[in-house]
């Protein structure tokens, strides 16, 4: 018996990856009472990103599978993987929301009515006129944080960022989670 694999099933089988995590310190030397500003940037690639596109939106919408929730987490840690400690962390959610658009530029009103908007971590919706715009907004993040280095204490420290992204099961993707770690960089606290 021939087994037919739909395009959706093919998408589901491809792995989702995190791009190398970019981790930057605004300055590599601070005093104990001075805030350390860091930025972390990462991007999802592969499976989920490829699956969340117009060709699958229509099918998902028909199954009333309209909300893609992505949970992001990030922590800045000092020391090694085993004995290190978390200095600061953050968690947030972004959403891809499928909806029936009435934008005449995006739909022919007959077959391709479903479009996606993206909600930021405050829940505010953003509309895009191209698919790539929706995906870039959803699957890429740059996060800036600041902290006081008191918990680190004076001296030379090695810091790194750990990032994870989690999602749940949908018609176009299985439940999953990816995590990655940035290379370490030095911070001197005076």
């Amino acid at each position: 018996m021939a087994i037919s694999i739909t395009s959706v099933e093919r998408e589901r089988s491809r792995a989702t990856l995190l791009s190398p995590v970019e981790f930057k310190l605004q300055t590599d030397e601070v005093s104990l009472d001075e805030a350390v500003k860091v930025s972390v940037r990462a991007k999802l690639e592969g499976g989920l990103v490829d699956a969340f596109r117009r060709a699958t939106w229509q099918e998902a919408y028909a199954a009333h599978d309209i909300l893609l929730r992505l949970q992001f987490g990030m922590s800045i840690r000092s020391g090694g993987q085993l004995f290190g400690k978390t200095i600061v962390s953050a968690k947030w959610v972004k959403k891809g929301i499928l909806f029936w658009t009435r934008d005449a530029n995006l739909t022919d009103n007959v077959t391709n009515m479903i479009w996606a908007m993206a909600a930021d971590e405050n829940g505010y919706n953003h509309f895009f006129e191209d698919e790539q715009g929706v995906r870039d907004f959803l699957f890429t993040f740059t996060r800036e944080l600041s902290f006081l280095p008191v918990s680190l204490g004076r001296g030379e420290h090695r810091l790194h960022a750990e990032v994870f992204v989690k999602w749940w099961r949908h018609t176009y993707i299985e439940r999953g989670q990816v995590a990655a770690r940035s290379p370490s960089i030095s911070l001197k606290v005076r």
Partner: protein
Amino acid sequence: MVLSQEYEEKKTVEYNVIKKTQSICPECNRILPATIFERDQKVYMTRTCPDHGETEELYYGDYQMYLKFSSYWDDGKGTMAPNVAIDNCQCPANCGLCSNHLSHTGLANIIVTNRCDLTCWYCFFYVKKGLEGAYVYEPDHEQIRNMAKALKAERPVPGNSIQITGGEPTLRDDLPEIVRILKEEGVDHIQLNTNGINIALKPELAKIYRDAGVSNLYMSFDGVTAKTNPKNHWEAPYAIDACRKADLGVVLVPTVIKSINDHELGGIIDYAKQNIDIVRAVNFQPVSLTGRMSKKEREKYRITIPDAIKRIEAQTNGEVTADDWFPVPSCSPITHFIESLTHKKQYELSIHFACGAGTYVYMSKGKLVPISQFVDIKGLVEYLDEKADDLNSGSNKYMTIAQAALRINSFVDKKKQPEGLNLGRLLFNALVRHDYSSIGQFQMKSLFLGMMHFQDKYNQDEERLQRCDIHYLTPDLRIIPFCSFNVIPEWYRDRVQKKYGMPVEEWEAKNGEKLEDRLYRGQLRKVRPGMKAEAPTCATAEIYQKVSNLG
């Protein structure tokens, strides 16, 4: 027609374009592409008809509230039994419902008569004798039964809530029989839309309606002074008192018009508060501007949901703040969670976020305490979304219930929660055990404050219409969204009433009475010198003395 490139660029430079939708030309009903944009922190809609030019209209009076409310976007499941099977979505031209409609019926209206006992000059809903083409529309019992059957046939969620409306429905002497028919067809919730005058005149009607199966009255109440509420200022207190005696809940329904009664929204809430033992809700309706109106006139009267919400904050001295309101689809995560738990499709409120908003206020020590002041609503709905995702992804149901039992309480601030209320338990019982028995107790001391901005030809947005869940049932067994039925009456309301009605003269001959015989003669209005009233005047009645703003 697509807006010209030049036009698009001009708008983008001058204004912050939010998104594109579709609307109609208020002159010729042509379906047009429309742009929603922000200017000076307000949201507008514009479109250009090749024949009648541009129409720009205020869409939402506060951009920040628009942003907050739009975050609760949730397209519904729709209904799988469309009457109009059509691929090409052409809202609002094919309502019936058509296969593209996105919400099942939340509340179905049945017009039982278009006769009325009042003759308000601004009303388009009642038959005006002497006008060419005036038809009396009164569906018979069989038609009404069939309409109820059509509602119950909706899938996956059968309709379960009907509003009997008019005209003035209490003019039909067979109203109790109509209610019984709807009950026989399995309709649980029956709301009676009325001006309350007949009930004020004949208080025994309240019990008769209640015994027949009416769940609550939906009573027009436009203000707390005779000037702002000429319709039933004198009669409403008597109708409320009759309902109190019959234990028939009342929803007050003010139509809010800028420059006319928008200064009395706080007074109306205050009046509801005084009658909280029987008034269950106040449902404000920012005016829908019917008929041809100049831009200047529209600006004079137009009020939108955020404007009304801000006035309520000011007029209740901050008891009910703007932050306490949530758009109707904010309830969706609750539905999704219960669906994931039960694997059964549930009744959902999936209207567009710009259509309606609401909040629950709880009465504590003489003050109204909005639910959002002791419940983290945003946190709770996000948590329920996550748990629904867990369940849909194969997480263990019993483990999820156990987690929810521990967690739901953490969204309730027990220090701020009104005395005697255990909302955490109530929520858990309702969400997880589907035990709604204690909700009745909550409702006894609470008021629902709601708002729905019915559309008109100037602000009509097809994106909203396609998600409408307030519908009309018609004798041809169509189910027509409210804002098609009434916004384009020439396509819907008038046609239906002409087809299934009869000329006024024929109705009068058949029934042996004149249309004007049942007009209200003002028996309960203020006693003028030398006149005898049938009942004490409202102005002197104790019931009205409590209203702070009495004019």
